[in-house]
């Protein structure tokens, strides 16, 4: 299958802190790929670099054959790459519907109404609360809003940074169901998770990050059954 995202030897620094030390990986069209790793391994930094919020000192990020190295963050989403950031970062003082409209910022106005309907169908809870400000939503609802907002831009590749963080088990299940549905509908997904068990179960392939480097890679099932992974990330 065609490669949609190619990350080649990126090195990212926060001042003097060398957070990403030469990471390379790729995502093929239609795949679900997951990055797993402990706190501080560099997962969020990697996603933020791909979406242009951070810059790599070396190497390259290529999306659908085009380099993103010099593309400013606000021009990346219109190419079909959306990020649901860690901690959701919905606009708390804006209403649910306004948040979704912001997700469609780069889209033609004429299609927005239909896209809102599409998202509301996927997340009926958001429809019930469309006039509420996002700050009054529960954590799970905010996560759905963040995902819905990203879908408004019709991403070819959807990147999710810890979508299950801080959610009750039943909601986690629901979120993973949605990821599975998006995958079935043909969306390519790059998923970052602490919940390695759940992430590897939906993923075609996974990469394990440790202190800014890729240490292991393999298919979801391979990684799930690997003794080292079990010991380090699956609690047994």
């Amino acid at each position, binding site marked *: 299958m065609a490669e949609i995202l190619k990350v080649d030897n990126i090195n990212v620094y926060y001042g003097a802190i060398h957070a990403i030390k030469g990471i390379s990986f790729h995502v093929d069209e239609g795949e679900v790929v997951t990055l797993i790793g402990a706190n501080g391994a560099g997962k969020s930094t990697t996603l933020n670099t791909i979406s*242009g919020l951070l810059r790599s000192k070396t190497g390259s990020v290529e999306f659908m054959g085009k380099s993103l190295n010099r593309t400013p963050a*606000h021009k990346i989403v219109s190419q079909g790459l959306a990020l649901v950031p860690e901690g959701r970062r919905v606009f708390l003082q804006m209403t649910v519907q306004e948040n979704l409209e*912001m997700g469609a910022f780069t889209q033609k106005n004429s299609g927005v109404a239909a896209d809102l309907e599409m998202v509301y169908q996927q997340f009926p809870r958001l429809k019930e609360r469309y006039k509420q400000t996002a700050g009054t939503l529960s954590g799970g609802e905010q996560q759905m809003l963040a995902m819905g907002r990203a879908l408004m831009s019709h991403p070819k590749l959807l990147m999710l940074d810890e979508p299950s963080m801080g959610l009750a088990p039943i909601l986690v299940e629901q979120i993973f169901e949605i990821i599975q549905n998006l995958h079935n509908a043909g969306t390519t997904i790059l998923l970052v998770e602490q919940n390695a068990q759940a992430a590897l179960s939906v993923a075609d392939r996974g990469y394990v990050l440790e202190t800014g480097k890729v240490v292991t890679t393999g298919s979801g099932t391979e990684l799930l059954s690997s003794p080292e992974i079990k010991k380090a990330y699956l609690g047994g």
Partner: protein
Amino acid sequence: MTFLSFLISGISLGSIYAIIALGYTMVYGIAKMLNFAHGDVIMVGAYICFFATSRYEMPPIVGILLAVVVCTILGIVIEKLAYKPLRAAPILAVLITAIGVSYFLQNAALLLWSSNPKVFKPIVPTGSRITLFDGQLSISVITLVTIASCIVIMIALTTFTSKSKMGKAMRACSEDKGAAQLMGINVNATISLTFAIGSGLAAIAGVLLCSAYPTLVPTTGAMPGIKAFTAAVFGGIGSIPGALVGGILLGVIEIFAKAYITTQLSDAICFAVLIVVLLVKPAGLLGKQIREKV
């Protein structure tokens, strides 16, 4: 009736403060900085209108439009040259830069236009008044024009930020610039737009101010600028309705203090009220302290 006429004067002065306060509050909301040069943009606007109408004898409306255009461009240029390079700098560095820009504008005006006071030609003829209640209440037309301008500007701006795509993008940027970029919003362009709107409004405020108080010198904008900043904090910095409420209240308090207490202490009284309000409501009258969910 004197009470009523003082009240109307207060609301009119307060309308000017409110229009200036909008510039402070919008820029603060999005760039999280206090643009202390904002008051001096008012002065520049007033000079432009003065030269257009008095020297070149253009009609007032042309003078106002010219002032708005020049100040809008000035606002964008100030932001690009002075503040944009400091986006990641500590807040104190930005504050000092803003004070520097303020002095720069005052001194540039001093060089260009000298310290000799100019007599501003009001945009409506001096002395035109409306009398009500059998001549018991007389209000000058400029007072009414000022209040009406403030109302129109408030309605336009509220509609813009709540209904238009760019207005919503502005609110998104003021909450979370990173997330706004992920939506495809150009944060730099949005900040520029905010400075443009604030500075354009400052030009209108300058013309209204000098139409009511026609002495124009290079420091004309300084005191109203500080008072409008006070009004913005008073109402809740970052909040558009807060700028309106804060501005009007400050104007009314100032005129009442002048009328019923003493002219010398009117400014002191304004600031004393501000301090009391901030002790009771640290975020200002309409400012909200939002808590983020984790």
